[in-house]
Structures are given as C-alpha cells and as structure tokens.
C-alpha cells in the first residue's frame, strides 16, 4: 500500500514538473496563432467579425515567418481577445437590436 502511494506521488510530482517546463516558444506561438484563427473564424461565421483581429493575425503570421515568436504570440493573444469580444457582441446583439429602432414590432 505504502509503495503504491509513493509511486503515485512520484508520478504526480513528475507530471507537475513536466507541466512547469516552458514549452517551445515556436510551438507556443503557433498554438496561439491557431487559436486566434479559430476564434476569428467563429466570429466571421457569426457575421460579426472585426477588422482589427484579422490585421493582428496577419502580423502574428508575419512574425512567425521571421522567427519572432514573442511578437507572434502577443499579436495572436490580442487577436483572440478581440475575436472573443466580437463574439460577445454577437451574442448580446442577438436580442438587443430589437430595442434600438422606433419599430412597432
């Protein structure tokens, strides 16, 4: 029993240690860009895309190409945040638009 607990603790410790090791910056940047692209695609599909995230994704891609992973990740993260905001806008506007015009119905 004790041996099993010790083994489990060691496995858990190893997992924690592994997750704390910083990932490859290139990989991190690519993942950030992929996430930004996915969120931007969602906002386009909702008909609510903003222009700024698209420009930021273009910047991030260009930075990736020249190996500037820090800029790529930073631009991509900003693009993701803005795409999220545009999706929140789409959600809010799905009903709010009705109160905005002097319509009867």
């Amino acid at each position: 029993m004790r041996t099993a607990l010790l083994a489990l603790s060691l496995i858990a410790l190893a997992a924690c240690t592994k997750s704390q090791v910083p990932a490859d910056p290139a990989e991190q940047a690519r993942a950030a860009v992929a996430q930004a692209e996915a969120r931007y695609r969602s906002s386009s599909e909702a008909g609510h895309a903003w222009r700024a995230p698209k420009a930021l994704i273009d910047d991030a891609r260009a930075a990736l190409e020249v190996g500037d992973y820090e800029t790529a990740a930073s631009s991509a993260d900003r693009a993701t945040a803005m795409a999220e905001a545009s999706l929140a806008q789409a959600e809010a506007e799905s009903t709010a638009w009705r109160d905005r015009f002097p319509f009867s119905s």
Partner: protein
Amino acid sequence: MVRTTILGAGLLLLGSVALVSAPLASDTSDTNSGIDPQADRQALRDFYSQRFPDVPLEEHKNGVYAFDEGAREQWLEMEDFPPYEIAVDEGAELYEMPFADGQGYPDCFGDGAVKGRYPHYDDVRGEVVTLEMAINECRADHGEAPLAYDGAAITRLTAYMAYASRGQIIDVALPEGEGALAAYESGRRFYSTRRGQLNFACSSCHVQLAGNRLRAERLSASLGQVTHWPVYRFKWQDVGSLHLRFNECNSQVGAEPFPPQSEEYRNLEYFLSYMSNGLELNGPASRK
C-alpha cells in the same frame, strides 16, 4: 377529498400548461409572425417628423441637405456643374454599346429608366434582386462576362440609369410572403445591430444621432438614404454604389465589411428602400 384536490391541481396544471404553450405554438408556426413592415415604416416616419419638425419627410431624399442650410447652399452651387455628369455620359455610352450578339442593354431595360423596379423580392428565386444584379443577368443572357460589382463600368451604367429614372417614386411592394418578410427582417436587423470595435449600428448614427454632428459632418436620416445612388463622393473622387457606402460604414466602425451585392447588403437595401417608399428617386447625386 385528497383525490378531488389532486384532480383539481392536475387540471389547474394542465390549464396553465395549455395557456403557456398556446402562444409558443403560434410563435413557432410562423417564424415571421409579429413583423409588420407597414407599421415599422409609419413608426419611422413619425420618429423623423418629431426629430425634424420643420423638414417635410419627402425632403430627406436630399440627405443632410434637407436640414443643414449652409451645407445645402454649397451643394446647390456644386449642382451647377455636377461632378457625376461625366459618369452619366460614360454610362450612356456603355449602355448603348452592343454586346457581341448584336443585342444590348436596351433589349433588357428599354430606355434605362427602370431604377424604380429595384430592389424587389423575387419569390421564385427566393432572394432580393437589385439593379446591379439585373445588369449582370442581362449580360449573362447575352453571353457577356459579368461586371465586377465594385468596378467603374457598373457604377457608370447605374449612374446613367439612375439619371434616366429621376422623378420615379420608390414603391417597393409590401413584403408579405415568408421569404420577403425574412429578407426584410434580415435588413431591419442588420440596420439595428451594433457591429465592430466601435460598437455602432447603422441606426446609432442615422436614427439615434440623426441631425447631430460626427466631427465636422452632419448625420443624415435613414429615410431617403437609398434615393440618390450612385453618388459622387468628394472623398472618393469618383462615383460609387450604395453597397460601397455600406461597406465603408461597416469598416469605419471597425467591422469586417461584406462584399457588394452580398445577401446581407441586398437585404439591407431592400429594407431601407421599403422604409423610403413614397420618396422620389433623384440619383445620381454628389455628397461630401
């Protein structure tokens, strides 16, 4: 006693369920129920009558020049040598130029004075048809390649056709069928939906803030926004289409715009045209 109470409670519950579900059932049976374009149009006219009590509604065909006296004077002076005149002349030449099969635009549109027929909802096709679409369909019928919707040729043709159609009254048929009502609703919704990083709807500027200044410019009313296209804008240094203006407005608020003649913009044009029913077509025009 207990049985009677249970039965009574059951009946009450059944009754309340029936009461609640009845309106829901009618809501889902017709997705367009509750849309009343006539009442909307009247509400909008009443709104502008109150907002601009000294401006006859028909005068909104002139945009901000309906209520900005100084700008109106400058505009009237510019009309002595209208900057869209060259586009109209070039459009007339294009209009008369025969296609490869010997036919031409006059075989599709007669003398070109057909702007009053567009946009309309085509029940068979299930979509809003605009003049620009009709021009390209005329070309396709005669074996010609389509014109780019954001190109100079189609804008010049529509400038000529708008000029030939001056004085016609906008008379978009009341959207009644399911498809027409859905297209109308889509346009109405687009007009009222906040977009872009600046979080503006078309109605933010042209309803809530109509008549106010945005920097140095006055904001026009929704009524009459479709009467005068294509427009020579000094900012563009050329004539451009209504959909180009939609595109520009969306871009200005930080939203990703839609392409000219997209379903979104055609539905928006349809909605705005119905709102402007009764106003005179007076295109092309010049604007700052």
